């Protein structure tokens, strides 16, 4: 019997309404108890005084790029990056060109993850064949193969009748359906937020309405079918208003937002900085403020990284030719802790809720909480540890991260998956 006692940390477990100093006892890969003081004789004791003890972080939007683009990332490198970022479970999106639109690729991702992964990996299948928006995938088989959600990733299902069928069909298999809310025609060749900055830079803009018209469409479809739709991810203030309107009326419309949309605006693109090129784009300060507020009040339930590692060549090129994306797994928690929690914009409890409890709930996983008898996935952060982001030290293959050089606190100290240390004292325990 293997027992681990995490002693004296500030335990933040939103699912159980806990936020205070407590001990956490893990036994044989499961949580055994969480209490103010736990006495044992046979457990290894980890001193957590001064540290934050939370359920392992869960991300609904990660690109591991295997199979297909192993030059960008692999399951081995991506899951190690995740563990170093405090993540213990990942919703894995499809790789461009080799998508999870059939059970074979879904099974491959699962078996590779079992072999090479160091955190839990949950495949997210596509809604349409080849993400083309034309024909339904075998959603039933994809579900049976182990996919936890359905998403055409960063491709909008342009045809409303197709989206309607996806919702009707996926409902039978109880799979959550994700929508990338961006009208393809309105976004056109756009790269950055449409506004004075896109005009100054002379770059084609993506208007916020490109997001809002699709968010509105999904809301109407969700209501008419009484289905749930998850917007993944959102970027604009008006979409937040739409979500509020929907949720007040009991329409099952939910959303996630990225750390970069919470912390940066389109001003980060000035000087043609390709690391700030993302999809959906970084928007205005007003949008950013509205997004922070929406996370604080729960309108936007989830923060997901949209971890999208790129090769150096894909970023070190003309802005118009660069590939959008940020490799964000290793910086998400310290960024949000430093910039939103320490500055008082977000409670720690709500941050943990948005990065662990809510994503686990959306994907129907028995994770995201420190409830006895559930898997012992725990992340432990040091709120005092101060370090500068250095992309060259990333375990991810992607060095594309606009927060390079930022001084942050709240770095992950230990990451425990199923009762085993994957990261201990800030270092991987596995090679």
């Amino acid at each position, binding site marked *: 019997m293997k027992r681990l006692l995490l002693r004296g940390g500030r335990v933040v477990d939103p699912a159980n309404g806990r936020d205070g100093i407590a001990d956490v006892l893990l036994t044989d890969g499961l949580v055994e108890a969480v209490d103010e003081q736990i006495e044992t004789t046979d457990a290894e004791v980890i001193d957590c005084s001064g540290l934050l003890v939370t359920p392992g972080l869960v991300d609904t939007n990660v690109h591991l790029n295997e199979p297909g683009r192993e030059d960008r990332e692999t399951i081995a490198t991506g899951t190690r990056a995740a563990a170093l970022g405090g993540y213990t479970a990942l919703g894995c999106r499809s790789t461009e060109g080799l998508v999870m639109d059939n059970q074979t690729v879904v099974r491959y991702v699962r078996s590779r993850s079992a072999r090479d992964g160091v955190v839990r990996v949950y495949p997210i299948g596509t809604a349409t064949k080849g993400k083309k928006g034309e024909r339904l995938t075998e959603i039933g088989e994809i579900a049976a193969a182990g996919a936890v959600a359905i998403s055409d990733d960063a491709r909008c299902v342009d045809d409303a009748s197709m989206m309607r069928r996806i919702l009707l069909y996926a409902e039978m298999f109880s799979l959550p359906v994700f929508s990338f809310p961006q009208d393809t025609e309105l976004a056109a060749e756009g790269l950055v937020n449409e506004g004075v900055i896109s005009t100054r*830079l002379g770059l084609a803009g993506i208007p916020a309405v490109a997001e809002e018209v699709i968010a509105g469409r999904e809301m109407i479809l969700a209501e008419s079918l009484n289905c749930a739709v998850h917007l993944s991810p959102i970027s604009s203030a008006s979409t937040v208003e739409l979500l509020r309107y929907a949720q007040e009326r009991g329409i099952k419309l939910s959303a996630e937002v990225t750390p970069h949309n919470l912390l940066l605006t389109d001003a980060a693109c000035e000087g043609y900085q390709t690391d700030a090129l993302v999809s959906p784009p970084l928007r205005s300060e007003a949008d950013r403020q509205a997004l922070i507020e929406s996370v604080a009040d729960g309108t936007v339930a989830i923060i997901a990284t949209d971890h999208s590692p790129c090769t150096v060549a894909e970023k070190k090129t*003309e*802005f118009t030719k660069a590939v959008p994306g940020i490799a964000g797994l290793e910086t998400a928690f310290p960024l949000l802790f430093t910039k939103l929690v320490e500055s008082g914009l977000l409670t720690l409890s709500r941050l943990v809720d948005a990065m662990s409890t809510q994503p686990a709930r959306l994907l129907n996983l028995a994770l995201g909480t420190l409830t006895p008898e559930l898997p012992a996935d725990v992340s432990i952060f040091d709120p005092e540890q101060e370090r500068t982001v250095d992309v060259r030290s990333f375990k991810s293959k992607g060095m594309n991260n606009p927060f390079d050089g930022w001084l942050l606190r709240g770095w992950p100290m230990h990451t425990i998956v199923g009762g085993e240390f994957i990261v201990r004292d800030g270092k991987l325990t596995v090679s």
Partner: protein
Amino acid sequence: MLKNKDLLGINDLDVGEIRLILETADKFKEVSSRRVKKVPALRGKTVANLFFSPSTRTRISFERASKALSADLINITTSPSLGETLADTALTLEGLGVDLIVVRHDQAGAPVQLARNISAGVINAGDGAHEHPTQALVDVYTILKEKGSLEGLKVALLGDMRHSHTARSNLYCLTKLGAEVAVGAPGTMIPEGLEEFGCQVYHTTEEAVENADAIILTRVSMDFGNDKLLPSLREYSRFFSLNTKRLALAKPDVMVLHGGPINRGVEISATVTDMAWPHLREQVANGVVVRMAALYLLSIRGSEKR
């Protein structure tokens, strides 16, 4: 002295730097009237004209300017289709000992990114819809030569604002020097947030040119996907073209400038083009002296790693 090693856009310049370039151009203006139109200012220096997208008149203007300064000139007019990145091309040029690089590119920001990667000075000769600083300086110089000052003058900008690099540079340059700028273009050709540049935005040519002291035209074509922004050039011509009737709304001594190439009968009627020729000719001639000034000021500043 200019603050940066590069001239990438008017947005980066302060009024003092703009005036310095214009005053330096004035000194070179005298050179162009000499019998031997050449000074040794850039002797022993090498200028590379890197034209990744076609622009005959800007390239020749820079070529004339470089030669009048006695610089050695390398002309590269084909785009590297062998997959080499712009940064690698620049490093090659640096290895060849190039002092100044003049870049024309169809992608906005390419010269800015290039300048970050090399120590040689870079002049942006037009990048996508971003900036074309020397052309704006030429336009302003031409107006100043006739009007003396831009303070309080009304300048109308007409044409495709969405895709024009010169229009943006003109907006920065004219507003920084105190002109009142009025833009006139169809709504589909006006990019988001243009009024934040400090100009009035109109959807008619009439309102824009009313009482104008100068009118600067930008070419309107069906390129750049403009077939989605305009029903036809004929329709544009009918409702927006600068014809004699619309020109009459401006001040009697109005100057008409056009960066070229001119689409006669589209953005400007043939009659007005002919009326405007003295100014257009002056504008082209001034192109050489303003570019001489830019090359000279960057060369004396020397190179440095940013």
